[in-house]
């Protein structure tokens, strides 16, 4: 277990994903606007890259014509459309059996990163930047 700096916050546009590699794992990191989320990148169905999927708000309906889009954000697989909750990693269709691994994500100032316990593997951290941290 460790905290890994994976990219600058401005490297991922809002509602977009980015593939990062941490400790031999492929992880899809998403910018949700007010926060970030990360799940294992390969779709468990047929192995597509979830980082290329579409991020969307989960629609809920109480009845015909009465619906709202919730804060719960999902990613839709770019191939067959399997949808995964970005907080829990569980699929909408088969939440108990078909799921991806979620990872804790946080954002940190570059200045605070110099002291650790962060592991910076691939690039220099500038003290005035903001960075995405994934816990693996």
């Amino acid at each position, binding site marked *: 277990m460790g905290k890994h700096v994976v990219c600058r916050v401005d490297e991922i546009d809002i509602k977009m994903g980015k593939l990062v590699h941490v400790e*031999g*794992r*492929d992880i899809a990191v998403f910018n949700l606007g007010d926060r970030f989320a990360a799940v*294992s990148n*390969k779709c*468990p*169905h*047929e*192995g*597509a*890259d979830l980082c*290329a*999927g*579409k991020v969307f708000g989960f629609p809920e309906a109480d009845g015909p014509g009465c619906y709202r889009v919730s804060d719960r954000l999902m990613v839709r697989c*770019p*191939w*067959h*459309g399997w949808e995964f909750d970005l907080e829990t990693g569980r699929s909408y269709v088969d939440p108990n*059996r*078909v*799921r*991806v*691994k979620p990872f804790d994500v946080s954002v940190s100032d570059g200045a605070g990163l110099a002291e650790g316990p962060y592991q910076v593997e691939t690039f220099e951290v500038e003290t005035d930047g903001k960075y995405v941290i994934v816990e693996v």
Partner: protein
Amino acid sequence: MTDTTELVREPQSKPEQKLGLVDCDIHPALSTPGELGPFLPLRWREHVREFGMRSPNPLMGALPYARIGHGMRRDSYPPEGGPPASSLAFMQEQILDPLNIEYGLLHALNAGPSVMNLELGAAVCAAMNDWQIDKWCSKDARLKGGISVPQEDAEASVKEIERWTGDDRFVQLAIVPKSLEPLGRKRYWPIWEAAEAHSLPVGMHSAAYGTHANTGAGWASFYFEEHYSFAHTAQTALISMIFEGVFERFPKLKLVLVEGGFAWLAPLMWRMDREWELRKGEVPMCKRKPSDYVRSNVWLTTQPMEEPTKVKNIAHVLKWLGPDKLMFSTDYPHWDFDHPDRVFKVGLSPEEKQGILRDNAISVYGLN
């Protein structure tokens, strides 16, 4: 292997040395509609400009149903722009190289076989064939074409087939199953005769387009009804060809049903055999048991893979069909793409797997 349906991803393992495979269904695309223009004679370019290309399908210029992701893998749009599978470089990067595809069989879907103006249809098919060679097969020897023919005009179809005699960049005919009449009828026999004579298997790819509605009761309401209609449309063609005696008359003809499913084939064989036993006098041109013709003349591609809730049920289906009937296909770049490493969720012997992924197609198409 495992018979559980647990699909939680294990940590990544090192990819093994991959076996070369044959992908029996890749859809190359025009970068722009105008890209076909240079391959059409001036007379038909002018015709298309003034009158368009009328087909019997509703909603000209659009598919009748909204499809998931416009029908495309969301990650298949080439970085340089243009529609999915319109860039050879990106197709190589995305599937031909990483999946170690030894041969990729093209199905260049187009309106040629079903436009209402038959002569225009013949010109469009010919143009699509020239385009397949120019843009794809001549640039990457792994890609093999399918000769598109204006199938409602058998004479013109034979002419188009003969235009490519001896060109091994084409390995099959591309036939649309929603034909004007059931495909066993005699109006199509000159095409089957030419296919047999030139050793070209008939690749019958399911298609939204055709000369009829997608069900026997007319147009279905939803895309998923259309998706399943591919299966009964393929069955209609197969049943017709068997009982009209096509395989009796052309015993070396090979029929490949592409993207129509396969789990239905065994029950269909049981039923055809039983009914044939009861009253074969009605169809004297069908001399052998219907399932015999399936065994000797018919193959199917795997995509979209049948996915029963209990994955082990697929093992029964494979047993009923026999190990040599199925050939792997991805359907790239369409949304229901199948990945060779992930599509078989039931245990296959190494021989079965190699047969489905590669050897069956090598043998059926005479590749290598």
